[in-house]
């Protein structure tokens, strides 16, 4: 049976039978993969702690017809441990894992999504920034990688140079006064600036932002995400924000 080895992030686990688990993971080079980890719920298992959601692992599996089987695991980064000790970070992490589940396909290489998620989890585990901002930055960037890059400066419809006053989710972000569809909102200029900085990874601007604009920005990111992810995210309503 063909063996493979890859780096992976554990997205989600499901109990299977008496003592096994199905591990859904995003691998670095072969996209999303589902594999059985045998006996991991028993106490003597060598693998258990390495196959928890949020863990970055070096994994070896053999390919099966429906499901692969995990044969070896080493921990590369135990982000899950640190994340579980910070409740806000935990709720943000689960939303990121759920987003990655929805925005990736089985066996379709998604290295950019992999690197993005690994970076965001590291940021949560190391408490580099406010967890809510890390989540919003991740959501914006993963949507961008999936082909739905929002615009927060130039008009998302005609490309007219911004900044503009109006925001429209369906149109793709900022819209100029000519393109502006009915029902567009008018967020604060500071909110546009915050969202642009999150998308660009300009943390100096993002870290210095005011709570008021973070809340407004977070509302727009959620609306944007729900628009593009058909079934929506179950975890989003449970995210705890400062």
């Amino acid at each position: 049976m063909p063996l493979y080895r890859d780096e992976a992030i554990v997205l989600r686990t499901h109990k299977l039978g008496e003592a096994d688990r199905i591990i859904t993971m995003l691998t670095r080079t072969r996209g999303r993969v589902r594999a059985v980890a045998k006996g991991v719920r028993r106490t003597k298992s060598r693998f258990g702690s390495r196959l928890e959601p949020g863990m970055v692992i070096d994994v070896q599996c053999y390919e099966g017809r429906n499901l692969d089987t995990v044969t070896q695991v080493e921990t590369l980064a135990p982000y899950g441990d640190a994340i579980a000790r910070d409740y806000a970070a935990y709720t943000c992490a689960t939303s990121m894992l759920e987003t990655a589940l929805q925005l990736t396909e089985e066996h379709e290489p998604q290295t950019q999504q992999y690197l993005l998620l690994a970076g965001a989890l590291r940021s949560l585990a190391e408490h580099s920034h406010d967890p809510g901002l890390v989540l919003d930055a991740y959501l914006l960037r993963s949507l961008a990688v999936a082909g739905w890059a929002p615009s927060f400066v130039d008009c998302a419809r005609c490309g007219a140079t911004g900044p503009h006053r109006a925001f429209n989710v369906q149109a793709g972000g900022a819209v100029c006064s000519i393109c502006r569809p009915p029902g567009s909102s008018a967020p604060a200029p500071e909110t546009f600036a915050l969202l642009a900085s999150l998308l660009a990874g300009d943390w100096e601007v993002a870290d210095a932002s005011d709570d008021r604009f973070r809340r407004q920005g977070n509302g727009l990111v959620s609306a944007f995400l729900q628009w593009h992810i058909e079934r929506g995210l179950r975890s989003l309503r449970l995210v705890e924000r400062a």
Partner: protein
Amino acid sequence: MYEGAVQDLIDELGRLPGVGPKSAQRIAFHLLQQDSEDVNRLVTALTEVKAKVRFCEVCGNVAQAERCRICADPRRDQTSICVVEEPKDVVAIERTREFRGTYHVLGGAISPIDGIGPDDLRVRELMPRLASGEVQEVIIATDPNLEGEATATYLSRLLRDVGVTVTRLASGLPVGGDLEYADEVTLGRAFEGRRQVNA
């Protein structure tokens, strides 16, 4: 697809946790080959469990009356409460004979990805139990995995200013494992070595 009643049974069995279509089919044909008497015993057990068993109004454990056997026992130590995810965890801890207090069964762990937040569990029901001042220690014995640890983090924060000592079972329990699979000695040791988390 089978005809009528057989397929109905396979469909119902297939809705049980951990039972796939193949297992459902195997169980259905096993039942078909059994004596009526054996099948009736199973039917009675299923009917009785729904008719007689409910959840303890105090701790949320399975019970045959308003209160479970443990909550109704006057010899149990009323100064400590052990918080667990499921009734099966109560059974696992009882086996160790290490704990003489009472329990609080949450009904799961906080798992946003499954749409389960604190309000979907019996978290709020824990607070009135601490109001009288009799309880001195809350021991958090959620599973040693990501959801269980995060639930413990949430609870210890919630209980920070309540005036009780909050402890967590000692590490040494295998992470990723289910509490119910921990052997008595390991679980007993985890109990003895529990550490305070809200100091």
